[in-house]
């Protein structure tokens, strides 16, 4: 459903209520009844909390004493808050690497696993598995793999002749790359499935025709696969960007924001501000900033859509 269709639906046909027939009214009522369960959930668990959080971002509140209206104080404070700046920078750092690398990994996997081969489903399942596995278990295992002195990763590096391998999660410079690597590993299977469905929707005739015309496999990939996949890529890029800006769980269980503040990301900062420092107003202000950033990026992505996304 497109946004336009939806507008038509809620505004009742052409938006002219006088000419609405009885049948149309009946249809509208039916539509609302079917939408109701979802809308009620959306209202209670999403819309009302958003509005409240917006209101809260102008307050000072410790969850017990009465709220105090402070105007834009919370937002002004953001400008001088190192931890906020660091967490914003870390979130951008994380996203800038995670989004393209995950997309590349997912697309690569999808192309490899889009073959008619015996047991291909087993491989698809294997690569999808990290997405459904428990995050805490994953974090423990990866932490062990990257352990600075006993971990297999550093043992291999030492074997290869690197005398001083990085300290990974115990190093300020390497903690974030570890989070990025684990994040890509965990989510690429999910996006692989999306790419697989996109790949399978490409008509085989296009490839056959190109082959007849003498296009080699790289040319076929560049001129058929990539353009035909643009709607999927568009969807994946938006979902991934949003997921990246929301990252919390992985950081919380793997590094707890550390060492120091090296992996302190926005949502982690929001959590600490609210539930460790009991500054719910200030935490809401940070979440409003997060909301605005993600909204802006999504709008830009939608604007750019027309330029590069081709729907058949």
């Amino acid at each position, binding site marked *: *459903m*497109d*946004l336009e269709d*939806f507008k038509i639906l809620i505004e009742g046909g052409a938006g002219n209520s006088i000419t609405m027939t009885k049948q149309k009214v009946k249809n509208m009522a039916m539509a609302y009844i079917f939408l109701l369960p979802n809308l009620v959930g*959306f209202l209670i*668990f*999403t*819309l*009302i*909390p*958003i509005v*409240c*959080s917006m209101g*809260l971002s102008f307050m000072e509140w*410790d*969850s*017990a*004493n009465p709220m105090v209206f402070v105007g834009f104080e919370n937002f002004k404070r953001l400008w001088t808050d*190192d931890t906020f700046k660091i967490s914003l920078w870390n979130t951008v750092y994380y996203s800038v690497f995670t989004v393209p690398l995950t997309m590349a990994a997912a697309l690569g996997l999808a192309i490899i696993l889009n073959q008619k081969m015996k047991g291909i489903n087993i491989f698809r399942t294997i690569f999808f598995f990290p997405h459904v596995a428990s995050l805490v278990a994953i974090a423990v295992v990866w*932490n*062990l793999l*990257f*352990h*600075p*002195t*006993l971990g297999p990763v550093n043992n291999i590096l030492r074997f290869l002749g690197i005398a001083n391998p990085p*300290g*990974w*999660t*115990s*190093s*300020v410079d390497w903690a974030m790359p570890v989070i990025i690597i684990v994040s890509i590993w965990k989510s690429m299977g999910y996006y692989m499935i999306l790419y697989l469905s996109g790949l399978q929707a490409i008509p085989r005739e296009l490839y056959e025709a190109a082959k007849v015309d003498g296009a080699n496999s790289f040319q076929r990939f560049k001129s058929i696969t990539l353009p035909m996949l643009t709607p999927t890529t568009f*969807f994946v890029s*938006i*979902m991934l960007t*949003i*997921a990246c800006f*929301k990252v919390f769980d992985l950081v919380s269980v793997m590094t707890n*924001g*550390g*060492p*120091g*503040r090296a992996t302190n990301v926005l*949502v982690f900062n*929001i*959590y600490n501000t*609210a*539930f*460790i*420092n*009991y500054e*719910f107003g200030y*935490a*809401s202000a940070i*979440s409003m900033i*997060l*909301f605005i950033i*993600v909204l802006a990026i*999504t709008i830009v992505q*939608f604007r750019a859509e027309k330029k590069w996304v081709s729907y058949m």
Partner: protein
Amino acid sequence: MKLKHLMKKTAALTCIAACGVSLLTGCSSTSAKTEPAEKQGAAQTENSDTQKGGGAPVEITFTVWDYGTTDYWKVLVEAFEKENPDIKVKVTDIGGTDYDTKIPVLLSSGDTSDVITIKSMPIYTSLVEKNQLMPLDDMVEKSGLDMAPYYGSDEGIKIGNQLYGLPFRNDYYLLYYNKTLFDKAGVDYPSNDMTWDEYRELAKKLTSGEGNDKVYGSHLHTWPGSLYRWGMDKDHAMDKGDYQFLKPVYELFLGIQNEDKTAMDYGTLKTGNVHYSGPFYKEQVAMEPMGTWFANLIINAKNKGETSVEWGAAKAPHFEGQDPNIAISNPTPIAINKNAAHPEEAWRFIQFMCSEPGADLLASLGTLPAYQNEKTINTLVNVEGMPEGFKEAITVDSFVLECQMIPQAGAVDKIISEEHDLIMLGAETIDDGLDNMAKRIQKLLNK
């Protein structure tokens, strides 16, 4: 399609907001509930007096962490119920990891739980700031409770000259050592009056071996509190915004770790999430400064066959000029909810838990109580499995509280722990780290 994306995004983004709101709605009900709760409390109190002769007992709720896995809660509750047949204790067991985030949420919702055990002091100060704990001074006075055996730990946790909890435990650090490793190295056991310089030299003598078989002379746990306490005294606390006094302590710890290599390094311990008991149980370390509660853990582990370490304990080392008989301690108070449904009964319960009857029972199970007199201390040192000389090791003259008695204690702790990380990992020099710590904390306190 587009709309679906938008909706998904909005849904995801507001998870955070939802948390805030659930608290918001919780809060609004607080004021509505408070009054009836207090009235109810008063009514129950009157009833309870008449009930002493018989009738249905009053039920109070007792909020505590890890009830099932801590050896003493159940014993204490049962002993109290036996002695007070007119009161029944209903236990609310909350997991230890989440306890400190759940308690503030619980109390903000206007809950009428009666007795709240305080797991960490930042929660205590913030609950007092939020006006959620009941001042106990009147009750102390009325009951005539002797406060001397708390050795000032009760005074230490007063805020605005009012007491909001009775100290149940009051832990400080001892030096635990592995007798077998000392005997093997042919070195005398540590004395009760040892300086950190002597400790450092001793650690060198006790370190031997290489690789996986290496025995470390010293073990220094990663908690910031297991470092900064050694610089503290009555003039140097962690909530003042000046941390230069920690410089010698960091020099000592980093020297032991990096130059002498007589202790496992911070990064390894931290990323490996190594529990402070692990290396000691496995006899990989000869000496470890750790809290008084560790004695009970070792005894239990030995009884279960998890370790066969032959251990002893002495007073923790001190810097030149510091008095070894002043301990830096951290109390665990038990408090009463301001909205408690049964404040009178709750007071009788915490009085039992935190004064001689409860303290003696606690000591008999191997844990040091905050209420310390000849009787409770003797009970503790006579627990089976306690090493010789334990009484001398734990006997001190007075306490300085480690905890910060300010409402922002949680946020201050977070900053200390972040900068501690960077100094210990070598990502910051000691001077820069202490400077940043001071700047960030001053900014927070002056806000």
